[in-house]
């Protein structure tokens, strides 16, 4: 339940998001919380952190990283990978999106529902599928985002993506136990991990004329995707598919320029 919310276009620099569901927090400025998130609107990984912060009703300052450049703060906070998102809490940086989500769940354990499942076996299952999603399932789809044209490689990548979604459809049935989300009644760890990719999936569908989110093949996931995208903690963060298609064009152009220079 949201009591106070300042919304701004996420593409404007240095937005302050006050997003709180506890009366005590409504008067706290983002600065008091000393919570900053380095990110950008197009990154699914940044979205993960923002969904988690929304679920906990925690205010933070979004520091926008411009695509193609890396700020001093980013280089200082994540010297190993130089990548977003980075959460900076009281000056201490936390890197890697799912590590950030766990950190948020642990620090703000008392605020809002648990993001990770409470049962250790269910936690292990969620963590397993997240490794699968990031290491095996998404990489072929990322290739499709930057591919110059439709070819054998993109066709194979689409097939792999669809096969992966089939596995995740079965996983959904087991994890959700008949409820709305992988996490049960509310958006949880595995929902965030997979759901952050949905806008990009739709962009890939548009760019390559493929059907990935196919109601015939993965009815449970298609239903889940609709519910996820319309969840309070998520809907303001979902980028427009057409804007992602434009962004992908820019990424491809940049990669081509780098390849030929």
């Amino acid at each position, binding site marked *: 339940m949201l009591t106070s919310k300042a919304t701004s276009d996420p593409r404007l620099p240095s937005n302050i998001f006050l997003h709180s569901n506890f009366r005590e927090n409504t008067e706290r400025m983002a600065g008091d919380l000393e919570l900053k998130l380095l990110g950008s609107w197009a990154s699914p990984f940044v979205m993960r952190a923002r969904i988690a912060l929304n679920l906990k009703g925690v205010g933070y300052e979004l520091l926008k990283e411009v695509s193609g450049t890396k700020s001093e703060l980013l280089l200082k906070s994540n010297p190993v990978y130089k990548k977003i998102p980075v959460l900076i809490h009281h000056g201490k940086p*936390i*890197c890697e999106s799912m590590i950030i989500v*766990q950190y948020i769940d642990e620090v703000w354990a008392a605020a809002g529902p648990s993001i990770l499942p409470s049962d*250790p076996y269910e*936690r*292990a299952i969620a*963590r*397993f599928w997240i490794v699968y999603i990031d290491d095996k399932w998404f990489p072929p789809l990322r290739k499709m985002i930057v591919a110059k044209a439709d070819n054998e490689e993109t066709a194979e990548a689409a097939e792999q993506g669809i096969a992966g979604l089939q596995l995740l459809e079965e996983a959904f049935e087991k994890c959700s136990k008949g409820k709305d989300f992988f996490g049960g009644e509310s958006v949880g760890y595995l929902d965030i991990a997979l759901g952050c990719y949905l806008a990009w999936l739709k962009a890939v569908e548009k760019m390559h004329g493929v059907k990935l989110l196919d109601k015939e093949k993965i009815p449970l996931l298609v239903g889940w995707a609709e519910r996820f995208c319309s969840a309070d903690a998520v809907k303001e963060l979902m980028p427009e598919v057409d804007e992602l298609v434009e962004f992908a064009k820019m990424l491809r152009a940049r990669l081509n320029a780098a390849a030929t220079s």
Partner: protein
Amino acid sequence: MILGRMAAAGEEVKLVGRWASPFVVRVGIALNLKGLGYEFSHEERGKKSELLLKSNPVYEMIPVLIHDGKPICESMIILEYIDEVWASVGRSILPADPYDRAIARFWAAYIDDKFPSSLRTLRGLNEEAKAEAEEQLANALQLLEDAFPKCSKGKDFFGGETIGYLDIALGCYLGWIKAIEKMTGIKALDEAKTPTLVGWAERFCSGDAVKEVMPEADELIEFTKLIQAIMNAAPGRQNMHVSKNDR
């Protein structure tokens, strides 16, 4: 060699794996730290048992922990599971503080990003690729050397007073690192460059929980020679290497 022990009373705990795999060693160490009895189910090289295929259908890789019939896959996920299920038993594997946990998880992910491919190359037959692998390994170890003081806060291990999550994540590779040093003459853990890690490695390997499951460098060298002989006899079989089947 790893000896399986009787399962803890009332609980079935089974570890499916192979002694040469650092990922399996991780789980063995964690179970030892918690003082847990378990049955070790040895996976033959080049074959995948019915149990493995049934327990890990997605990757068909070791280790798999089977607890009361339920399979848990991926070594670092297994570690967190062990720490959570047996939270009141033995010492905590993960740090207590959320920030320390985030740092430990970050470095564990970094280690698995850099070490398996470097080590695989260094014990393999592709000589040309070894210089780059050596450099990647050296850079990774330097970063971890620099990270040690912050994590350990002046104590003996990344986890503080006792072995923890990050110690296990890195330490499991020490058998292979020593084997590679012997086989190639490379000095991976160098007193001159990474003195803190050298001291840490000695302490890590001498712990009871580790000694029991860590393979000896000489055993691993014999194992490598065996694999290389097989690969030389059948040159088309590229994927016979240990860690391609392990996570």
